[in-house]
């Protein structure tokens, strides 16, 4: 450094920046200035009593609506343009918490139940993986290559605009009533959930980051690996969370429509026998599975997106 060593200006600058080398106030003094809380007080604060009480209130209200059968009794008095949004439900179709619980107690230990569950989980998982891989690859290709996007874009939008469930009868004829048709349906639905945001994310990659890498002599491949991939990570993981839930939905819907095995099959059988306790029980099991899948991606987000400090990323609901 040939700049004026020891000039008063430089000394000023040093103190303004190197606060850690010559601290004005010591760490202990700082501690003395802040009211210290006990570890228990800290834990209670982190536990966030108000939020937990709020959650309990929601759970209790829902439970009460169901348990007291208020939800089934409905409110016939409420009528909007001659339509009753909360009609009375006939006792034949009513499910009760007790009977739903009994159903779970009865069937959860059964291996047949788990065989059905495994069928649905397998269909949803395979569909989720295929849809994610295809969606990410298609999104990246369409986002990176303008001509490809121009050629295929309108058709993709057209197909995405179609109600994909409407193809189910055709899918069943082509792929049979087995597991394959459920996978195909779920893939068709979940694919777009991943492809659309991935493509958008690729085209939104900060061009300055690309320019910086390019001026440093980066090849296209290096730019893809060091800029594009990390930049679209959050969008992909967010889309995959949705795709996980949608895949379960697709598989169950396919099973309800026509199937040999699976929780959807079990569900529609219960419903046909007017056993709505079974329907509720199975929906709970499916929800738990979808939450686990969602949570697994949440963990991946926490692991890979550590850099999104302070920014609003979709967080797993932690109980």
């Amino acid at each position, binding site marked *: 450094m040939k700049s004026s060593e020891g000039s008063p200006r430089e000394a000023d600058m040093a103190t303004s920046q190197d606060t850690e080398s010559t601290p004005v106030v010591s760490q202990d003094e700082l501690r003395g200035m802040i009211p210290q809380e006990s570890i228990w007080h800290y834990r209670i604060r982190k536990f966030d009593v108000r939020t937990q009480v709020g959650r309990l209130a929601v759970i209790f209200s829902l439970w009460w609506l169901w348990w007291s059968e208020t939800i089934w009794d409905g409110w016939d008095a409420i009528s909007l343009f001659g339509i009753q949004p909360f009609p009375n439900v006939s006792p034949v179709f009513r499910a009760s918490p007790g009977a739903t619980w009994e159903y779970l107690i009865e069937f959860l230990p059964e291996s047949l139940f788990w065989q059905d569950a495994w069928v649905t989980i397998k269909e949803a998982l395979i569909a989720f993986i295929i849809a994610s891989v295809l969606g990410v690859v298609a999104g990246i290709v369409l986002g990176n290559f303008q001509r490809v996007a121009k050629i295929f874009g309108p058709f993709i939008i057209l197909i995405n605009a179609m109600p994909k469930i409407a193809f189910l009868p055709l899918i069943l004829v082509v792929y049979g009533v087995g597991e394959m048709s459920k996978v195909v349906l779920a893939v068709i639905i979940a694919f777009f959930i991943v492809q659309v945001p991935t493509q958008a994310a690729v085209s939104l990659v900060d061009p300055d980051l690309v320019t910086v890498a390019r001026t440093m002599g980066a090849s296209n491949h290096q730019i893809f690996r060091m800029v594009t991939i990390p930049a679209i990570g959050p969008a992909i993981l967010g889309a995959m969370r949705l795709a996980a839930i949608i895949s379960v939905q697709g598989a169950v819907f396919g099973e309800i429509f026509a199937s040999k095995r699976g929780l959807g099959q079990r569900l529609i059988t219960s419903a046909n026998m007017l056993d709505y306790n079974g329907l509720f029980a199975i929906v709970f099991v499916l929800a738990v599975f979808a939450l686990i899948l969602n949570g697994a991606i949440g963990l991946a987000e926490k692991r890979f997106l550590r*850099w999104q400090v302070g920014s609003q990323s979709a967080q797993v609901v932690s109980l």
Partner: protein
Amino acid sequence: MSADTPAVELENVSLIFGGDHPSDEPVAALHDINLSIPTGQFVAVVGPSGCGKTTILNMLSGLIPPTKGAVRRNGTEVDGPSKDIGYMLARSALSPWRTAKRNVELGLEIQGIPKNKRSEKSMELLRRLRLEDFADSFPSQLSQGMNQRVAIARTLALDPDLWLMDEPFGALDAQTRLTVQSEFIELWESEGTTVIFVTHDLEEAVLLADRVIVITARPGRIKSDTIIDLPRPRIIDELRFDENFKQAEERIWMELRDEIV
């Protein structure tokens, strides 16, 4: 390369955007620029916005070729990006997923420098910019001024012999800008590399540079070329109130004013 080969040379350089279709009006961004910069000179380029200042840097960095004329570096024509040029953009443009240290190492990674060498280099630079305690922080955890200093370190990591800087401190508030300017000029004075520094801030240009070039409104031409004869090392926050500095700034302002008003 003889001793008097300029570090940077623009010869009759013109740049036209668009116009490749009859219905598309061509726009002359730069017109007939002749400029020769000797090795080790700190040149500031000022001019009204849209006059093609950034375009000059883009041509020098090899991102775009001139429509007409020749752009040379150390006597050879520029034909693409080179790791010997450090280009710093207006925004810090740091990778949000990289820590400060790994951001500094970006160019080294691109050039395939082994990990321990990268680490050595990046830590040295972070130390020089007084950021060593923030090596493992992500850009979102650092202040704007700190991020800009990280961007400076990243630009210098490949030891470029030409620094191109596009309004690097434009986004900073006045106080932070002063600090970062001081640190930057201290760093530069110890290195003595050729710098082309684009700014819309005339005060900044005169404070930092050996030579200030004023570019006219579009199409950009060289309006004036002034040597700033202020002694070095420069203490930025004192120099601001120096009479000689004020005179130099006023003289160039007269030139620039015609282009802005």
